[in-house]
């Protein structure tokens, strides 16, 4: 039996969650305040995921870059490959919040979307 102590990143509360494991299986989860904490703990000990936020280049916009995010969580090991893919992209202004910038980034099934409007110059 083993114990893993995690800090929940689900919200700013940052609960300390203890996960008890037995033979690679979760026996119990404690310390979380809400359901989100349990979900976080479950994935964090098996297949951790994160939301990625970054920017991509914009051509012809009032800003040279537009902020973007993965529309959902992607596997933690996918963060840098995702960044690499975003590095190659240039979008053309205007860009609107919610516009899909990359579909199914790095085969994660998750899209990257714009989080800001960038108007044309």
């Amino acid at each position, binding site marked *: 039996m083993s114990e893993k102590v995690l800090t929940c990143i689900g919200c*700013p509360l940052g609960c300390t969650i203890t996960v008890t494991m037995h033979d690679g299986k979760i026996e119990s989860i404690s310390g979380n305040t809400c359901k989100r904490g349990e979900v976080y703990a479950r994935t964090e000990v098996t297949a951790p995921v994160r939301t990625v*936020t*970054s920017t991509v280049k914009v051509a012809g916009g009032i800003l*040279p870059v537009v*902020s973007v995010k993965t529309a959902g969580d992607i596997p*933690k090991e996918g963060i840098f490959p995702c960044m690499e893919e975003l590095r190659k992209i240039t979008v053309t202004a205007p860009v609107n919040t919610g516009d899909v910038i990359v579909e199914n980034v790095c085969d994660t099934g998750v899209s990257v979307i714009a989080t800001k409007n960038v108007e044309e110059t």
Partner: protein
Amino acid sequence: MKKELVIIGGGPAGLAAAVAAYDAGLRDILILERDERLGGILNQCIHNGFGLHTFREELTGPEYAGRFIKQVEERKISYKLQTMVLELSHDRIITAMNREDGVFQIEAESVVLAMGCRERSRGALNIPGYRPAGIYSAGTAQRLVNMEGLMPGKEVVILGSGDIGLIMARRMTLEGAKVKVVAELMPYSGGLKRNIVQCLQDYDIPLKLSHTVVDIQGKERVEGVTLAKVDEKGKPVPGTEEFYTCDTLLLSVGLLPENELSKKAGIKLNAVTGGPIVDQRLATSMEGVFACGNVLHVHDLVDFVSQEAMLAGKSAAMYVQMQTKDYDQPIALLAGEGVRYTVPAYLVTEEMEEPVTVRFRVTGIKKNCKIVVYQGDVQLLSKKRPVVAPGEMESVLLKKEMLHTKEAIRICVEEG
């Protein structure tokens, strides 16, 4: 020009105040924003984690700002961008300037101060060493990276583990920089726990608590910094120096409410927060002037800024609609044992129809404690907290029916 309400600052506080004032019936509202767009500092906070309280979902900074900008646009509330307020006079005459109008004055019936805060600079810390290029406050670096697409450096040391410092550690790493270490003067981090996990631990960036920068090397561009351990008084311990080569030093060493306008106007400020002293309506010592957001006291969550700002907007609207009344002696709210300050600082009981959220910060980390509110010797309420920390704002809710005297109210952190 005359306006019923002028809001100084178009960041999250100003936007929420404008929306709330509109919804409370005001129409003659003007927002003055010094930057090129509405949204304030949120425009450069491209990470997520905003809005869980307000919108029940996790948004990035620009998205969060976008929601409020949309509400402002829908209500057709007017605003002026790239407009700097130069002065607020005792009789609420605002002098401002921009490219289109030049210098102009507005007679405002009411004013909401929502100017936000600024970052403490190296100078305020007296960090010795050279003064080369490559020393940035974390927010400046954030703007360069996230808004301008420019990299301020490739090898980075960060002083201060406030949230902006932690967020920038991750951001710089994602953009290909090597963040060597984050040093924190205090024995605990000033940032949110989740940011320690997802910004430092995820990327194996070491966090050195009780450490500070004791020297900066490099005559032209930063070439390295020396860290040293500090004792309980925050003084560097000789012999603990460690040199880190780097081309960039980011400082995330605290935020200061930007109250130069308020000071010049003669508005009374709280020495602890650096923000105006307000009652529960967020009315300052100057009639018809209200304050909210980081200009009032530095928040850690924008959701609370929005809540507070809505109250300020609503209060301004009520002020315009009803003008002043003669109030009885207000009740003072005091920071007791273990508490640094409270906002508001006093209660005008005649205006306490709704429960009052009193926000405050504690003086140090305490585990298994309780927050207790007294009026004189009477305990008004007590709430258990597994842990409290200076980095995270606390609050209690006070209701009119709890109060039976005019005695001062004290908020304390106690054992147990």
